[in-house]
C-alpha cells in the first residue's frame, strides 16, 4: 500500500517528462494527481482500520500521524495540480513559459509530491534525507522563471535550508548515539517504532542537546523565527501553485519532524524543557510576523509572513501541551494548510490579472473578479482567525490550553499578537479587495480550473469551522496519543 503511494508520483513524473504537447502533459498530471489522492485516502482509511502499517522490512511505516501528513499532502497536492492547469496554462498562453518548461514543471511537481509523502511514511530518523530532498526539488521549481529575483530567492533558500538541515542531521546523530546505548548498533536503532518504546531511558543531557539542534534545524525549514529569513523570498518568487505547496504542506512536513522528535525527547528530558523551547520559538515567530504583516507592501510576502505566524501558533500549541494544546496544534496544521493554499490561489489569480505583487497597485478585486475576490476576503477572515471558520476553532483550542496549563503570560502575548495581525492583515487585504478597480483591468476570472481548486479548499475551511466529522476527530485524537 505505502509502496504504491510512493511509486505513483514517481511514475507520473517520468510520464510527464515524455509528453509532447500541453494537452498531454496536463492530462497526465491531472490523472496522476487523482491517482495519488485516491491512494493517499486509501492509506488513511487503512491506517484508520489497523492503526499502524509496516512494510519493507520496517523501512516504511504509517501510523495515524503519518496518515495525517499524507492526508494533507495528497489533498493540497491534488488541488494544487488542478490550480496549476489554470495558472501555468495562463502563463503558457501569454508566452511566459514554453512547452519544455511546462513539462519540466509538472515532472518536478510530482517528484516534489513524492518527497513530501516520503517524509510522512519513513519509519526512521532518516526522515532527514526526505526533508533535504524536498529542499532540493523545490529549489529547482523556484528557478522555473529565470528572473533575477527568483534565482536570488532560490539560492538563499538552498543555502539557508541546507545549513539548517545540517544542524538537524547533527541532532539526529546525537539521538542515534543516545539510542545505540540502549538498543545496540542495529539498523532498527533509528526507527520510531523501536525508539519511542525505550525513549524514557535515553540520556537526558544528550537528548537536550539533540532536541535543540533538531528544533533549529527543522525549525529553519518550518519557517520558525529567527530562521525564517528565506521564507518570504521563496514564497513570493516561486510559481503560485508551488508557493501553495510550500506554505501548505512543506512547512507541515518540517513541523512533523520537530513534533516526532519532541515526543521522543520529552520522554527523556521531561516535557517542561522541550515545551518551553517550543513556546519561546512560537512566540518569537508570532512577534516577528506582526510588524512585517502591518507594513507589508507585497501581498505574496504578506501571506509568507502569515505562514511564519501560523507555524508559531502550532509550536505554541505543542509547547503548551496537554490534550487540548496538542489537539489544537494538530488540527491547526490541517486548517492552516487548507486556508493558506486557498489564499495563495487567490493571490495567484490576482497576480495573473494585475501583473504586480504590490498591494498599492491592486484595487477593487471584488468587482473585477467577483468569485476570486469573495473567496479571497472570506479566506482572509478565516486565516486571521475569525469565527465561524476552521482556524478559529484550532486557535481557540490552543488559547484554552494555554490558560488551562498555566502559561498565562505566553497566552496573553499570543492573544495580543493575533489581534494585531488580524488588524494589519485585514487592513492590507481590504485595500486590495474593495474600492474602484484600476482603469484598464477588464472584468472576468482568469480560469475556471483555479476557481474549482479554490472551491474545494473553501469547503474544508467552512465545514471544519462548524463541524468536525467523527472519523477525523478519532484520527486527530490518535495523533495526540502518539505525540504525548
Amino acid at each position, binding site marked *: 500500500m505505502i509502496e504504491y503511494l510512493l511509486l505513483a508520483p514517481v511514475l507520473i513524473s517520468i510520464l510527464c517528462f515524455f509528453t509532447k504537447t500541453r494537452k498531454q502533459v496536463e492530462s497526465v498530471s491531472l490523472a496522476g494527481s487523482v491517482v495519488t489522492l485516491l491512494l493517499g485516502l486509501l492509506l488513511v482509511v487503512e491506517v484508520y482500520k489497523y492503526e499502524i502499517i509496516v512494510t519493507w522490512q520496517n523501512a516504511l511505516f504509517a501510523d495515524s500521524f503519518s496518515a495525517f501528513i499524507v492526508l494533507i499532502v495528497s489533498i493540497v497536492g491534488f488541488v494544487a495540480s488542478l490550480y496549476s492547469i489554470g495558472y501555468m496554462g495562463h502563463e503558457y498562453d501569454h508566452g511566459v513559459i514554453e512547452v519544455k518548461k511546462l513539462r519540466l514543471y509538472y515532472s518536478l511537481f510530482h517528484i516534489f509530491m513524492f518527497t513530501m509523502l516520503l517524509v510522512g511514511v519513513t519509519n526512521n530518523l532518516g526522515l532527514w*534525507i526526505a526533508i*533535504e*530532498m524536498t529542499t532540493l526539488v523545490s529549489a529547482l521549481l523556484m528557478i522555473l522563471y529565470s528572473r533575477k529575483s527568483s534565482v536570488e530567492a532560490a539560492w538563499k533558500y538552498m543555502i539557508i535550508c541546507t545549513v539548517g538541515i545540517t544542524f538537524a*542531521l547533527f541532532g539526529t546523530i546525537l539521538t542515534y548515539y543516545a539510542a545505540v546505548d540502549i538498543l545496540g548498533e542495529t539498523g532498527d536503532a533509528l526507527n520510531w517504532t523501536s525508539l519511542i518504546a525505550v525513549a524514557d531511558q535515553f540520556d537526558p543531557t544528550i537528548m537536550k542537546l539533540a532536541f535543540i539542534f533538531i528544533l533549529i534545524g527543522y525549525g529553519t525549514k518550518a519557517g520558525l523565527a529567527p530562521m525564517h529569513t528565506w521564507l518570504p523570498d521563496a514564497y513570493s518568487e516561486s510559481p503560485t501553485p508551488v508557493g501553495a505547496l510550500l506554505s501548505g504542506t512543506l512547512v507541515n512536513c518540517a513541523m512533523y519532524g520537530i513534533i516526532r522528535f519532541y515526543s521522543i525527547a520529552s520522554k527523556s528530558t521531561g516535557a517542561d524543557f522541550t515545551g518551553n523551547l517550543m513556546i519561546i520559538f512560537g512566540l518569537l515567530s508570532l512577534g516577528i510576523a506582526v510588524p512585517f504583516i502591518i507594513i507589508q507592501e507585497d501581498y505574496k510576502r504578506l501571506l509568507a509572513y502569515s505562514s511564519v505566524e501560523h507555524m508559531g501558533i502550532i509550536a505554541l500549541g505543542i509547547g503548551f501541551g496537554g490534550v487540548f494544546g496538542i489537539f489544537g496544534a494538530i488540527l491547526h496544521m490541517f486548517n492552516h494548510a487548507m486556508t493558506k493554499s486557498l489564499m495563495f490561489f487567490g493571490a495567484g489569480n490576482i497576480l495573473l490579472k494585475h501583473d504586480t505583487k504590490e498591494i498599492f497597485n491592486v484595487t477593487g478585486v471584488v468587482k473585477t473578479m467577483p468569485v476570486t475576490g469573495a473567496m479571497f476576503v472570506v479566506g482572509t477572515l478565516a486565516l486571521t482567525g475569525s469565527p465561524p471558520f476552521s482556524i478559529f476553532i484550532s486557535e481557540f483550542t490552543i488559547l484554552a490550553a494555554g490558560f488551562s496549563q498555566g502559561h498565562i503570560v505566553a497566552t496573553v502575548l499570543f492573544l495580543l499578537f493575533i489581534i494585531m495581525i488580524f488588524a494589519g492583515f485585514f487592513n492590507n487585504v481590504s485595500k486590495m479587495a474593495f474600492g474602484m478597480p484600476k482603469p484598464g483591468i477588464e472584468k472576468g476570472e482568469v480560469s475556471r480550473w483555479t476557481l474549482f481548486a479554490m472551491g474545494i479548499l473553501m469547503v474544508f475551511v467552512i465545514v471544519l469551522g462548524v463541524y468536525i466529522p467523527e472519523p477525523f476527530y478519532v484520527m486527530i485524537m490518535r495523533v495526540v496519543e502518539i505525540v504525548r
Partner: protein
Amino acid sequence: MEEIVFNSGIMQLLIALILASTFLILGSTRLYSCVKAFGIQSFLLACVAWVVGFSTGKIDLYIVAFLTLIIKAAVIPYIFIYIIREIKVKREIELYVGISPSLIIGGVLVVISYYLIRSIAVITELSSFALSASMSLVSIGLFIMISRKKAIMQMLGILIMENGLFLGAISLTHGMPLLVELGIFFDVLIAVLIMGILIFRINKTFETIDTDKLKTLIG
C-alpha cells in the same frame, strides 16, 4: 575495542591531518587549491572510516569508506573544477575577512570546540578528540560560508560542515545505519549538482557569482 581505535596513533594522525586540510582551505585565496584541499580532506575521511571499519569489523563501514572516496574525494571535486572552468570565474577568492584574520579565527574556533566538547561530561574520553575535530569542521565550514563572497565557496562551506558531521557520526556511533548513510550520500551528491545548476543560473542572470549582488529581496 573503542579505546584501541580512537587512541591509536593512526587515528589521531588522520584527524590532525583533516584539521590541517581545513586550514589549507581557510588560508588559500585560490579556488583550485581550496577544491584540492577539500578532496584531500574527503580522502582522509575515507581513511578514518576504513580504519574504524577495520578495527570494529563492520562491513558497512568499508562500503561507506568506498563511497566517500568515490563521491566526496573524486566526483564532487570534479564537479567543482568543471564549474570553475565553465563559468570562467576569476580564480582568486574575494573575502570579507582577510587571510590572516581568517586563520586566527579558525584557530580560535578549534580551541572553543575543544573546550565545548570537553565540557560535555557524558561523552567519553575516547571519542572527544574526534568529536572536537568534528565540531571545529562544522564551525569553520560555517565561517567560510559567511566570510567568502563567491557562491562557490558557500557551497564548499556546506560540504565542509557535512564532512564534520560525518566525522562526528563515525566517532560517536561508528556511523549511522547503512541505509541512512546511503541516503545522505545521495542527498549530498544531488545537492551539489543542484547548487551547481543554481551557480550557473546566478552567473547567467547576474554576470557574476559574487553573492553580495544578491541583495534585492528584503523585508
